[in-house]
């Protein structure tokens, strides 16, 4: 027979940010972390559907995919990769600042993360404009120049560009959402809502941001580099 506990921990300290469905801050912190990781698993499968489809079609249409890949700007892609990795560093440093109670550093690093994210999106916008100019946008403006695809079958080049836009577009959408999250976190940090005792939202936002970085870590080689640029 279940007994009622004698002195429950309900009377314990209620630090700021404590939610009462939990027994204590530690349970809340662990639950928040687990929750974000479970959510990221759903994101792995969400992007994963695209990665799986890409894998299949690449195995079937390698020449077309290579031709399409060569039409992408490797320098911009590599730069963007470095930019995003840098934003992951600043994000990790933001978490560190929160853990060590440095409010100004926290705000600074969050802002830097957003700046680098904006640089990334700016470069992507530039790339998309170039593609549009060259008629390489399936469904909306598909009219590539003859010599652009080096005699590779045009259909599979268009298929490649479907993947290029769908995958980087979905990635960019996630970055925009990340922007929104970072904005909220920056405002809250500025207001001093976080401390070494309560910084879970920063940590959890960081997990999301790093995940978006990891997606790009795979998108870059799969889209830009497997094109036989030699």
């Amino acid at each position, binding site marked *: *027979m*279940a*007994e*009622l*506990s004698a002195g*429950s921990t*309900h009377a314990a300290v209620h630090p700021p940010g404590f939610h*009462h*469905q*939990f*027994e204590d801050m530690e*349970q809340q912190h*662990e*639950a928040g972390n*687990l*929750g974000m990781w*479970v*959510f990221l*698993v*759903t*994101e*792995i*499968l*969400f*992007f*994963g*559907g*695209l990665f*799986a*489809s890409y894998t*299949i*079609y690449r195995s*079937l*249409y390698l020449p*077309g995919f290579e031709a399409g890949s060569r039409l992408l700007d490797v320098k911009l892609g590599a730069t963007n990769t470095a930019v995003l990795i840098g934003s992951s560093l600043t994000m990790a440093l933001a978490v560190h600042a929160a853990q060590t109670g440095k409010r100004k550093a926290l705000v600074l690093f969050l802002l830097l993360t957003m700046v680098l994210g904006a640089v990334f999106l700016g470069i992507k916008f530039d790339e998309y404009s170039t593609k549009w100019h060259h008629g390489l946008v*399936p*469904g*909306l403006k*598909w009219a590539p120049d003859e010599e652009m695809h080096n005699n590779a*079958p045009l*259909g*599979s080049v*268009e*298929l490649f560009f*479907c*993947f290029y836009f*769908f995958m980087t577009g979905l990635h960019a959408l996630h970055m925009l959402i990340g922007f929104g999250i970072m904005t909220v976190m920056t405002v809250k940090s500025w207001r001093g809502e976080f401390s070494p005792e309560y910084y879970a939202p920063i940590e959890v936002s960081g997990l999301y941001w790093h995940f978006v970085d990891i997606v790009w870590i795979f998108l870059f080689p799969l889209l830009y580099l497997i094109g036989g640029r030699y």
Partner: protein
Amino acid sequence: MSTAVMETPAASRVHYLNANYGIKSWLFTTDHKRIALLWLGSITFMFFIGGAAATLIRLHLIEPTGALVQPATYNKLFTIHGVVMIFFFLIPSIPAVLGNFLVPLMVGARDLAFPRINLLSWYLYIIGAIFVLYAILTGGVDTGWTFYTPYSSTYAHSQVIATALGVFIVGFSSILTGLNFIVTIHKMRAPGLTWFRLPLFIWAIYATSIIQILGTPVLAITIFLLGLERLLHVGIFDPAIGGDPILFQHLFWFYSHPAVYIMILPGMGVISELIACFSRKRVFGYAMVAYSSMAIAVLSFLVWGHHMFVTGQSVYAGLIFSVLSFMVAIPSAIKVFNWTATLYKGSISYDAPMLYALGFIGLFTMGGLTGLFLASLAVDVHLTGTYFIVAHFHYIMVGGAVMAYLGGIHFWWPKITGRLYPDGWARFAALIIFVGFNLTFFPQFVLGYLGMPRRYAVYPAEFQVLNVMSSAGASILGIGYLIPLIYLIWSIRYGPVAGPNPWGAKGLEWETPSPPPTENFEEIPVVTEEAYAYAEPEDGSHG
């Protein structure tokens, strides 16, 4: 039947139903129990929408040449029936109503881990439902609930995008619910409540949540890609640029097969609770039943190709999927054996929930066994696309999942509302449902065996008798579903007041008043005993 202990009438005590009044206190609630009731109302509404489509289908099929609608409309009816019943009734039903209400209570917590996300999940469902209702009202959709390309992406002139959007949004509702349950079960169990002391309902919900997390995102991206292809007139399933429509099916069924386990696993969890309580015995082989839920969650992801045996999928892949489909039946069979062993030498009482549970065991077994016929590649070549399939999945989904849902609603009704319903009417309705169900769907096994194709608006005249039998059964089934609607609503006002534990059941949810206070427990309980610790039967037989 247990005695209804006359407690302090609910009206004089503060509990979750009377703690706050006004519509805002319901629409902005974060109390998992109120959210469960929001879900109850919504899915009941959608059930009747899906049921209306079914009614029209069965009316239409009374005549071989079609009694009611044009073939184009018929296509819309079975599509809407499928979309609504699967995504807007079956998938949420037990998790969102019973799971939301019971999970915190059963683990001894004050709420789920993320109450606001819980509310968001319901709002996403409502938004998704609005899109689908809009699609129904503005011409309907006729692609089948499976949305196969290229029809859905290129040739259909119906409300594909609106429906797809509705399904996409409700998918996120499902993901968030699953996420909430996983975190709650891992992190918020009461002191002493180890994993193997948990009620089997919790194990079932946990396994279901894992499937929701891992499978639903793939459906989401697939629907997203379908929508893009329809809008852009080009996409990755388009053969003109080398796309393969079969890839759509791979991605679609990667989710949709596990989805059928999302629909049945919670039902199995309910049945474990009902069988234990109404046999007054521990569930036989508790650990095996818990492990089998997890095994189902894993194996369910390895069999999706059995929906694609005749689509052009490679025979070798088909072989692998066939073997794995046989294997996935094993954990389900283990559960059936364990429930039966629980009944053996139990002290059985035939209250309405138990009638539903017993019906489940028989009907689910039939549905499951016929699934093995379909898992056999060579047999499936003949049976696929026929009414045999329709009968198979309705035995599981209606004879199984819906019966479990109704059994659970009846079992926990006193806890949820603080009222008892009239038992005589409840048992009567259960029997009507059982009879109506079998009359509706057993003839469909025969029809499928004889070769009648599914999703056809007309059929050869020689099949008419069986179709009329099926339609007659459907009318009885419909009446059977209306009866509980009436007496359950009646009981809210006029039913006898229920005590904390009218069934004498074991479980933390029965150790708090009916209806529970908003914070669930005055003090968080400490658990010291195993699950289903009913008194040992006198002759020493035990599970």
